[in-house]
């Protein structure tokens, strides 16, 4: 009461009050106008620009992050791991979360060494990309570095350690060609592949089985929608589509047999294919020289790729399917079958050391200068008489020869399941016209009959053809994949042997040629008798010696005068046991001088497979029995 009663001394004039009132009314209007501007702005943002800004708000917070599937593993037939995945750690920087980049980098390099190259790559990446994304600073941290960085992480804001799965090959160099390798997805891959399937993946199978069954191995990429905050940190997962892991693939290869064959060839160039004739399953496929398969999966480590690509020894070539060689005398069993099936039942030929076509002076020579004397099929194969086969080839003629030989798959790919397999050449009149636009000469028929001229084969083809003889006509498609296991459903898919057909020659003809081939190994004059001496089982085989340079008839073979790169290649084909074959081997060693010289390699492989395997199985059975007891 006291305060109000006192009142306020009123000094103002009516005029001043009216002026003030007028201006207050004006203020009202102006303020009202400005408030309308504010409201208008809110209406614009929240109604007219709503969909745009709402989208931006979602984009702000929601990120779709691909989840790469785990690539299927590759095993051998016994479940030994050949290709797996290993976690590789890398150090990444998110610039938006870094206070002072220079300080951070110097702090980091005190813990792990950062090379000038890594720093350059990081700075380049920084220049072109968003500062809210992570940029790789150092790849392939070792365990100790990961540990030290993890401990120091609290004082390295903006630095993150990321983990990535990389391919890891554990079978060593012997399987590099068969298993193949993965490489970075490049532009040409990107145009071909299904983007959603591969999102988040950086590697794709490029060679060998890795490439051939890429579709099984790769799986399907998944993704998650994550909410991220302003600092790019994941707050929570909104939804998730899990990736589907690739299938595990089991090869028909026996890792240990493969390693043994690889060692047996030694430090020479060559190839070997071993297979089960009754199923077509490839037990070993070796190519030398080879390379370290892990050198390729690693992109930023100085790879050996350029060195390998430029090497004169071509280590990247899979000689078992890409290396084409003249079959030489290994063609002779097939020639015998061609003769027998064309009713040339038991010719006898006198070998005087050379053969001449009527009316032509040129002498077609036998490898044995003095000649073999009278020879029949048996002796011709056992002693590898060339003259006999010149005569046989002449009687058959090129047309009947090439028809019969084509039954064994010469001149076409076996389809074993590797890209870049070469078909080789089965010479014929038609082939020569197409390939060289020339007509066929009579003399060419003769040298085709001993596996020379244009004739070329791969060891895969030779093994396949030999398995047809071992099977007495049944053709099983060669295969490298034994089974696959879908890790998501645990479903197992076995690749059953595929009977392609039968080379319909008479059973007695097959038995006859098998007998001839047994004579090669076990006969007194057989060219491979050295390996037959103390064998516990019967081997059927055939040697082949492929001359690389022409020699005059009377010239002596003097090792010291001929450079090693001109020495003949040695080829050997074999199967055993001869009456119920379990394994077929075809092997070539370049510049080995003769087929006889490489036959021991096949023997080693067969010994291991037939003897050691039986022992292993026996042991398994004993273990099984003792378990039951």
């Amino acid at each position, binding site marked *: 009461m006291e305060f109000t009663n006192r009142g306020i001394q009123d000094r103002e004039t009516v005029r001043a009050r009216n002026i003030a009132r007028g201006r207050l009314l004006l203020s009202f209007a102006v303020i009202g106008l400005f408030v309308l501007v*504010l409201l208008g702005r809110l209406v614009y943002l929240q109604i007219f620009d709503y969909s745009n800004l709402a989208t931006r708000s979602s984009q702000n917070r929601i990120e779709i992050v691909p989840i790469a599937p785990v690539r299927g593993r590759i095993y051998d037939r016994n479940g030994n791991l050949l290709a797996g995945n290993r976690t590789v750690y890398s150090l990444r920087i998110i610039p938006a979360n870094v206070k002072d980049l220079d300080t951070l980098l110097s702090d980091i390099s005190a813990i792990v060494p950062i090379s000038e190259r890594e720093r350059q790559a990081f700075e380049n990446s920084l220049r072109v990309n968003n500062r809210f994304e992570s940029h790789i600073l150092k790849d392939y941290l070792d365990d100790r570095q990961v540990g030290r960085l993890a401990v120091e992480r609290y004082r390295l804001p903006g630095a993150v350690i990321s983990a990535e799965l990389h391919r890891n090959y554990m079978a060593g160099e012997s399987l590099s060609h068969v298993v193949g390798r993965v490489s970075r997805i490049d532009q040409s891959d990107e145009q071909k592949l299904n983007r959603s399937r591969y999102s988040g993946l950086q590697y794709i199978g490029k060679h060998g089985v890795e490439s051939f069954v890429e579709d099984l191995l790769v799986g399907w990429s998944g993704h998650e929608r994550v909410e991220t905050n302003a600092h790019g940190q994941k707050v929570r997962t909104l939804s998730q589509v899990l990736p589907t892991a690739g299938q595990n693939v089991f090869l028909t290869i026996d890792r240990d047999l493969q390693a043994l064959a690889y060692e047996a060839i030694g430090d020479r160039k060559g190839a070997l294919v071993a297979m089960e004739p009754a199923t077509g399953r490839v037990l070993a496929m070796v190519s030398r020289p080879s390379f370290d398969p892990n050198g390729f999966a690693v992109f930023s480590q100085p790879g050996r790729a350029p060195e390998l690509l430029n090497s004169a020894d071509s280590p990247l070539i899979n000689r078992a399917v890409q290396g084409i060689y003249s079959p030489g005398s290994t063609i002779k069993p097939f020639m015998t079958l061609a003769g027998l099936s064309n009713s040339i039942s038991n010719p006898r030929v006198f070998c005087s050391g050379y053969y001449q076509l009527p009316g032509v002076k040129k002498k077609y020579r036998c490898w044995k200068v003095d000649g073999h004397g009278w020879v029949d099929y048996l002796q011709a194969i056992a002693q590898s008489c060339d003259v006999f086969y010149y005569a046989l080839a002449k009687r058959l003629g090129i047309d009947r020869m090439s028809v019969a030989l084509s039954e064994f798959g010469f001149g076409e790919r076996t389809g074993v399941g590797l890209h870049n397999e070469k078909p080789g050449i089965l010479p014929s009149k038609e082939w020569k016209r197409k390939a060289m636009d020339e007509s066929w000469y009579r003399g060419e028929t003769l040298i085709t009959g001993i596996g020379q001229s244009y004739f070329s084969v791969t060891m895969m083809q030779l093994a396949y053809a030999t398995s047809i003889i071992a099977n007495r006509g049944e053709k099983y498609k060669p295969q490298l994949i034994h089974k696959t296991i879908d890790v998501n459903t645990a479903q197992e898919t076995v690749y059953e042997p595929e009977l392609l057909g039968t080379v319909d020659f008479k059973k007695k003809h097959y038995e006859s040629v098998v007998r001839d081939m047994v004579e090669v190994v076990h006969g007194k004059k057989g060219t491979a008798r050295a390996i037959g001496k103390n064998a516990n089982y019967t081997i059927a085989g055939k040697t082949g010696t492929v001359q690389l340079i022409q020699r005059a008839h009377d010239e002596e073979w003097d090792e010291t005068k001929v450079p090693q790169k001109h020495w003949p290649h040695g080829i050997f084909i074999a199967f055993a046991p001869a009456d119920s074959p379990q394994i077929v081997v075809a092997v070539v060693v370049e510049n080995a001088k003769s087929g006889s010289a490489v036959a021991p390699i096949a023997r080693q492989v067969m010994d291991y497979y037939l003897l050691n395997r039986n022992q292993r199985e026996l042991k398994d059975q004993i273990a099984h029995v003792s378990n039951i007891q």
Partner: protein
Amino acid sequence: MGSLLRVDAIIFVSIILLCIASLAVQYSATGQELAPLLRQLARICFALILMLIIASIPTDRLCKYAPHIFIIGFALLILVLAIGFVGRGAQRWLDLGIIRFQPAELMKIAVPMMIAWILTRPPLFGRNINFIICVLLVAMPVILVYLQPDLGTSLLILAVGFYAIMIGGLSWRWIVAVAALALVAIPIMWPFLHEYQRLRVITMFDPWQDPFGSGYHIIQSMIAIGSGGVYGKGWLAGSQSQLEFIPERSTDFIFSVYAEEFGLLGGLILIFIYAILIARCLIIAYQCKSEFGRIVTATVGILIFVHLFVNVGMVAGILPVVGVPLPIMSYGGTSMVTVLVGLGIAMGVRHAHH
């Protein structure tokens, strides 16, 4: 009772509504922490009590002490500047132990009071000279605050000071002349602005020019407001604020958080409450018989309006980013105390005439 607690119901209810809204949004903006909320509640209580005390002081007594308040405020400004000069850095605060005090805030009320005090007594050297003295009294604190440097507050003091002079009866010729001068001053002052201040003005015109740099904050704020739509994303559910895309969420950008979570409807209601406060001040001034009360109350209304307009205009992307809080809503006590003290004066003025 009525004589001791001189409360204007409309103003009081509006303030309480704003306080409730403030606490709700603070809770969301600070990541649902209780401790800062309690501190803010304490500030609200302190400011409300201060308001009621001020409301109970007779207006003529306020008028009497206006020059003292102004001189103290002015001295403190010089002190702050001196401390800042010694400490080599921006200085706005006086640390009084428990509370930190911003003399520039005091000047938002003290300057209009001083103007009103001068204009309510007979001019010593004629009307025109009187107005020139008033202009000087406004200009001096404005310059001191600008030197701190605090461009936003200095412009606010300039605005309320000039408005006080205008309500005091400055002739239209002068008003037009000052307005023209201000327009001319903008391009002249431009090179004297700090680099960051110029950048803020440029950013206002086109924030998308540098979306990850200078435009980032204002773009995120606009996205927050716009994505709220008509009904809002719901309390505690604004992704822009919860995921920390909005800068200074609990202080200068509190309106973005509010608009994102409560939408256009919430925004309209909030601005409506502020409009009631502003209108209430202007109506009290209109009805006021004392010149001092009229000038000060009208200026309080304008003070709230300028805060509202500059703050919301800033977060909505039509004004440059200047550090002007939204009164009562923003976290912190300084601007709230200033505004509630002003409203306390308005209540007192209203009561004197009923």
